[in-house]
């Protein structure tokens, strides 16, 4: 057990790691915006009076939550072209990540909405608020505040899980690492380095989300209490 660590071999690829990290962050940002929107839409449908749309959302949530992300990604990238739908690797990655995060956030938001006390709904009804108004102004803000830490965790999980998009040749951080270690055979150093970068990015993302959550919801919570 005498392995000579040589991080110097990685210096030449610094630009590649940087652009890989940027791609990972961009993918995460895009799929967070789209995925959370999808989650809100799904949660809204769950409040619907009609059973049909509710069943459809339920089927989507179960299908995504009970299949591996890698399989979903391959389905989008390799499977859809067979149906005549050609999408590039970046679009495929964002689509798969969005669908994945969307399904989880539907469930997280639904839990938040169910945790809003019944009296708030009744109060909204007494004020003659429509179902849509009740959802937008009463249920959703409180649900968001309650489940924000869980949602933030899910976003971080999505970012970390995005490592597999390197499998469909998206040049993210893991792709950069695979490329570098196929050239300099320094697998240990390479993966050690990107593990560190992922860790730093995850901690920063979590911190940023916590700050944002505090800004967005503290006043709201105070008002609600």
């Amino acid at each position, binding site marked *: 057990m005498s392995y000579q660590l040589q991080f110097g071999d990685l210096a030449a690829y610094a630009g590649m790691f940087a652009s890989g990290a940027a791609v990972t962050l961009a993918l995460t940002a895009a799929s967070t915006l789209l995925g959370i929107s999808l989650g809100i839409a799904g949660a809204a449908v769950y409040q619907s009076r009609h059973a049909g749309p509710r069943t459809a959302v339920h089927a989507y949530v179960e299908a995504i939550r009970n299949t591996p992300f890698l399989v979903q990604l391959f389905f989008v990238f390799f499977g859809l072209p067979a149906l005549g739908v050609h999408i*590039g690797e970046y679009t495929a990655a964002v689509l798969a990540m969005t669908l994945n995060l969307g399904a989880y956030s539907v469930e997280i938001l639904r839990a938040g909405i169910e945790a809003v006390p019944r009296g708030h709904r009744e109060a909204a009804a007494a004020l003659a608020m429509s179902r849509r108004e009740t959802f937008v102004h009463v249920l959703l803000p409180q649900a968001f505040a309650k489940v924000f830490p869980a949602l933030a965790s899910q976003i971080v999980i999505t970012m970390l899980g995005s490592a597999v998009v390197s499998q*469909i*040749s998206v040049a993210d951080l893991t792709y950069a690492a695979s490329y570098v270690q196929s050239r300099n055979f320094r697998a240990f150093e390479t993966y050690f380095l990107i593990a560190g970068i992922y860790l730093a990015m995850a901690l920063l993302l979590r911190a940023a989300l916590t700050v944002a959550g505090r800004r967005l919801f503290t006043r709201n919570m105070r008002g609600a209490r």
Partner: protein
Amino acid sequence: MEHQPNSLQRRRWLAALLAVPALTFFAAQAANADALDAITKRGTLRVAVPEDYPPFGAVGPDMQPQGYDIDMAALLAKSMKVKLQLVPVNSANRIPYLQTDKVDLVISSLGKTPEREKVIDFSQAYAPYFQGVFGPTDIKVGGPADLNGKTVGATRGALEEIALTNMAPNATIRRFDDNNATIQAFLSGQVQLIAAGNIVAAAILAKHPPREPEMKFVIKDSPCFVGLNKNEPQLLARVNTTIEQAKKDGSLQAMSKKWFGQPLPANL
């Protein structure tokens, strides 16, 4: 003294010492005896063939070995008018089988390297083996320069991927982690072209896909040779004549079409 050898013991030692070079001399003689004569006398040609390396050699649905190398061995046995005995080997033991005289020839997708040339002899090339860029007929590519703006799928870290990265810096190379993903990306149209070995292209062609990988250009050529023991000029000449004839009369061409789905490259 106990350790002092008496004269009888000394004489035995001397005899033994003399016998060693004599035995090696006879052994060398046996190996030098013409291998072609030995084959004819025996009435069988013993050939080391791959047992698990399609389309060169693999066990067929009828449990019989089949492949390009098997056909080549049969061709040689036929030209020598002897029976054929196939000896399945793997890539690690194929040369030792030859050196220990368990086989007369190695026809096992064997490439030529300076290290191997030190221990065995090689015939002419008998089979194409190369890494190249493949793609559908409607994409016109004649060399690395034509790859500008085209997407090429390749398996990360594979010989052809590393070589192509240097040859075509302006091509968009999409790298996948294994051969299957690379093949899938090509078949599903996610990449326009594929960089792969001719064996991989043959395997894709064998399944008659909607997008057929046609040869565009060669990245690296390393054809296969028949391996035989050193100092066997007669056997070597015989093998070479047979290969030359097979090239002329079209039997190699037919074998290439049959096993690789493509005509022989012009340089073979």
